[in-house]
């Protein structure tokens, strides 16, 4: 599958939709995104449907548990399964979060915040390079939502992200909702934040809905609601600055709606994508 074929807004392949999607003659989306951890080493009815879809349609993989900012070694079986899945699905790359999820062997299955320190940059870059050496496809880092700083920061999140991307010399999965969530939770201008980062490294984007906890004014990145207009506005602002078509994934992991509703949400985002990139594709300049 040529990388150029992965353009436009795709959707995460979710369990409640498997039967409906498997019954279709062809994909109703440009691509599906899937977490290999949720599929490898399985069998049975649901697994067969998922694999039939993944064999039929374009797929991009996105990982959840390599804990690149952590210390726990990767199990050989996990790496073997991942490599085999990446080859079987022809994913153009594999992404993971810029975070840690486990320590001392204990897995929290949550995306935990990195300390913004030089030591953490060096450590994460070393792990990312090691993982890249294990994978048959390019590796991308995704910027995460974070709700608190862990320990005394020596730099901003933006500097931390830039140094890791440059140090690891890897691509960037830009999660535009996470940028928005962090800008609201930590009080910065998301456009200013984005403008100084290496946009030439962006290979893919994520976009999602979130939950606002009115009680303490905190936004939690739940992937459990429709995308709000300010996030779409930011999405339309950044696309021409990236300046090229690329795959964008609509994430929906909680309160998963019927497939038709999810596809309608995808259409809304595809229209925004087309609108934002039209001047670029016509050879124009962004404002």
């Amino acid at each position, binding site marked *: 599958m040529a990388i150029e074929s992965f353009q436009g807004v795709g959707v995460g392949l979710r369990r409640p939709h498997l039967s409906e999607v498997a019954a279709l003659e062809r994909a109703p989306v440009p691509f599906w995104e899937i977490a290999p951890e949720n599929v490898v080493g*399985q*069998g049975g009815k649901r697994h067969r449907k998922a694999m039939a879809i993944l064999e039929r349609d374009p797929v991009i993989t996105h990982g959840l548990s390599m804990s690149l900012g952590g210390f726990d070694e*990767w199990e050989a079986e996990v790496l073997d399964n991942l490599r085999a899945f990446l080859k079987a699905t022809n994913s153009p790359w594999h992404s993971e979060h810029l975070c840690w999820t486990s*320590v*001392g062997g204990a897995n929290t299955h949550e995306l935990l915040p990195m300390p913004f320190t030089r030591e953490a940059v060096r450590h994460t870059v070393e792990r990312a390079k090691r993982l890249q050496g294990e994978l048959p496809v390019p590796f991308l880092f995704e910027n995460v939502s974070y*709700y608190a*700083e862990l*320990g005394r920061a020596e730099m901003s999140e933006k500097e931390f992200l830039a140094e890791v991307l440059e140090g690891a010399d890897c691509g960037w999965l830009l999660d535009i909702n996470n940028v928005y969530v962090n800008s609201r939770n930590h009080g910065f201008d998301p456009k200013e934040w984005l403008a100084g980062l290496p946009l030439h490294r962006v290979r893919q984007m994520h976009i999602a809905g979130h939950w606002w906890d009115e009680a303490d004014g905190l936004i939690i990145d739940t992937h459990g609601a429709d995308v709000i207009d300010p996030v779409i506005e930011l999405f339309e602002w950044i696309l021409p600055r990236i300046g090229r078509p690329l795959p964008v994934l609509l994430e929906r992991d909680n309160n998963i709606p019927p497939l038709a509703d999810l596809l309608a949400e995808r259409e809304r985002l595809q229209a925004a994508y087309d609108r934002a990139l039209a001047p670029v594709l016509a050879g124009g300049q962004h404002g």
Partner: protein
Amino acid sequence: MAERLLALEKAMADLLLDASSAEDFQADPAAFASRRGLDAADGDAMRRHRQRLLVYRELVQSALEDPLPDCFPHTHRILEEAGAWRDCIQAFIASRSVQSAYYRDINPTFVVWLADTGWGQDRWPFLLQLAHYEQLELEVLSGPEDPAPAGLSAEPLPHAVARFSGTARNLAYGWRVQESRAEDPLPAEGAAHLFCYRDRNLEFETLEVDPHSSAFLARCLEGVPLADAASGVGVDWAEARNLLLRLQEDGAILGYS
């Protein structure tokens, strides 16, 4: 070695996973940090971010608990009605037993934790067996595919060895766990010899067998030739053959070699 980074992550794990550590953190974040080898600046940062660090505790507790009520509906209901579910989950999470990179492994890990610790089994002696059976259904339904190897015979001849599906499980419980129902989840005490597998329609099947048949199937699973397996436990060959043919028809036996 990134020692400060490791110390920060270990401290965070204490806060996220251990109830007593979380209480220490809430009472005095700087002292919490200091006791874990972190300097005053890191302790001060933890104090400033106290409330939001605690948000992560809620997220982690929720992430690790979320799959359990669906996988263990009867176990969950029994403990919930007794007001013990939260204590059970907190003890499970604090044990740090969840280590697999695969989220789906939380369910079998919970069963292993019950077996290792005996949690709650003085009050609910059936708890481990009920949880084991509840988890088994998911394990069988989603177990890896195992197509029949080439060259297997379809006929259960006396000297042959049975090749079972990888989803087949031969189990003996001391409680009638398979009879638990949503309206009455408490299992009755009594032997239950169950042979469980994924059938040809990819559905979960439980076949209750008598103790002799269970012993026969156990020997077959060990690779004992069929007639020897039957005679060794006093099962008539014709009866044994009928059982094998039924399991073969259902997909629990792939063939014979």
